[in-house]
């Protein structure tokens, strides 16, 4: 048991650390021994700038505020997009009529990348937060709808028969079988949707902004500041990584039954 636990900690901390370290070393060696150093700063400079950015402001704010501003754009839009996606996906999966009516529309919207909506979203929602929320909403909504749909269409027929036999009404079958059956699929969608909507923050902050992790990258273009750009990239990566872990923890708690423990 104890051995198992240390084994797990080893796995969670040691391996990622080693792989990141090796990556940084290759980066370092590559930059030092070639002409690349003209366009590419070394990893230690970027890492130390990244760490400094928590104390020294980039633009108006330090890193923590940039992250919080970006999260304020992503989280509400992500939540609304998720809810809309879950509801639409399950309804499409459960009621073939709804699927037949809405599927063509959905399929038309699906391949359009969020950035393509920038001009339109500015016209519709202005250059404030509204247009940014709209882009992120789309980034979350699309993959979550698809996964919720997959969940609702693969429900085990026998479980539905079983519920009817036990006396459940159609509404109860929906609530007690279709919904829980879709939960693992929905979480797959939530996970994908979270990373796409976090990634979309860069595009969203291309629309006029003066803060945010995406803004760090965008504004570095104006000054050709490669280090700042990489610091922004690092910020996006680290936060995205943490969000994914948080999401997985939530899933583990809610879907305890889904883990094989025999």
């Amino acid at each position, binding site marked *: 048991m104890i051995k198992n636990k240390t084994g797990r900690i080893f796995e969670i901390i040691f391996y990622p650390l080693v792989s990141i370290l090796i990556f940084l070393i290759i980066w370092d060696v590559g930059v030092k021994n070639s002409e690349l150093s003209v366009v590419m700063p070394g990893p230690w400079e970027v890492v130390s700038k990244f760490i400094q950015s928590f104390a020294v402001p980039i633009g108006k704010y330090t890193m923590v505020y940039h992250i919080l501003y970006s999260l304020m754009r992503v989280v509400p839009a992500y939540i609304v997009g998720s809810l809309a996606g879950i509801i639409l996906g399950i309804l499409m999966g459960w009621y073939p009529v709804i699927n037949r009516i809405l599927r063509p529309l959905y399929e038309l919207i699906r391949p359009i990348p969020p950035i393509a909506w920038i001009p339109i979203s500015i016209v519709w929602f202005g250059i404030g937060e509204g247009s940014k929320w709209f882009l992120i909403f789309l980034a979350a909504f699309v993959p979550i709808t698809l996964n919720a749909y997959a969940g609702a269409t693969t429900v085990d027929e026998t479980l539905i028969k079983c519920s009817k*036999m036990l006396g459940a009404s159609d509404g109860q079958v929906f609530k007690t079988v279709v919904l829980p059956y879709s939960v693992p699929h929905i979480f797959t969608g939530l996970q994908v949707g979270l990373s796409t909507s976090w990634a979309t923050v860069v595009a969203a902050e291309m629309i006029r902004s003066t803060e945010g992790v995406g803004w760090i990258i965008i504004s570095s273009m104006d000054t050709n500041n490669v280090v700042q750009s990489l610091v922004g990239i690092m910020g996006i990566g680290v936060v995205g990584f943490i969000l994914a872990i948080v999401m997985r923890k939530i899933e583990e708690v809610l879907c305890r039954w*889904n883990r094989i423990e025999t």
Partner: protein
Amino acid sequence: MEQDRNLDIILKCENVSKKFQTKHRTKEVIGNINLEVRKNEFVVLFGPGQCGKTTMLNILSGLEKTTTGKVFLNDREVVEPGPDRGVVFQSISLYPWLTVMGNVEYGPKVRGINKKVRKEKAEYYIELVGLKGFENSYPNQISGGMKQRVGIARAYCNEPDVLFMDEPFSALDAQTRYLMQEEIMRIWEKEKRTVIFVTNNIEEALYLADRIILFTNCPTQIKKEYVIDLPRPRDYTSDDFLKLREEITENMAHTL
């Protein structure tokens, strides 16, 4: 005497036939079946593979519609699934996101029975099937035999008039299967119910049945009925058991 027996009839099936319509052809699965089942009788439907046993059971339970003929439970026609019947499925089919307790109390819960009453009921049946202590386990944490016990408790907990079981033990290993046969008898002796049990295993049929209905091949009809009045618990190796086993096996072979 004859009058008494008729009063006892709980399930009746009159001139039932079933055809499946597929794209290219119609398949006649059930020929013409008449059947009466007495209250608390343990009836085994026995027949060759793919002869239509599951279809017949689904018709009796209301999961499948008849092509012609009618099924009556307590003199009311069966037209759709309902909680006065309970089914134990071959594929076990527990709700994986509910605990053992959650699965067993599912029926009373959706029927709006209050929490205290249904918990007590569920606890009683969980204990009856020998799963006390596993109330809070999830289905993926328990063995195949235990899962099927949960399936049985779940069906029982709704206190249906008839229990339908479709080869409930066919996915279990031989050892567990024998054990479960003993268990189902113990449970049935303790909580008498009308049971319609499908199997294609002759030993299982003879061990369990008050009456064995032997089906022919597709389109299936009743070939013969055997009233089994051997004393319980039955001995797989007794002369009477072996004699019946041979007779029925022989008779089934002729239908092939």
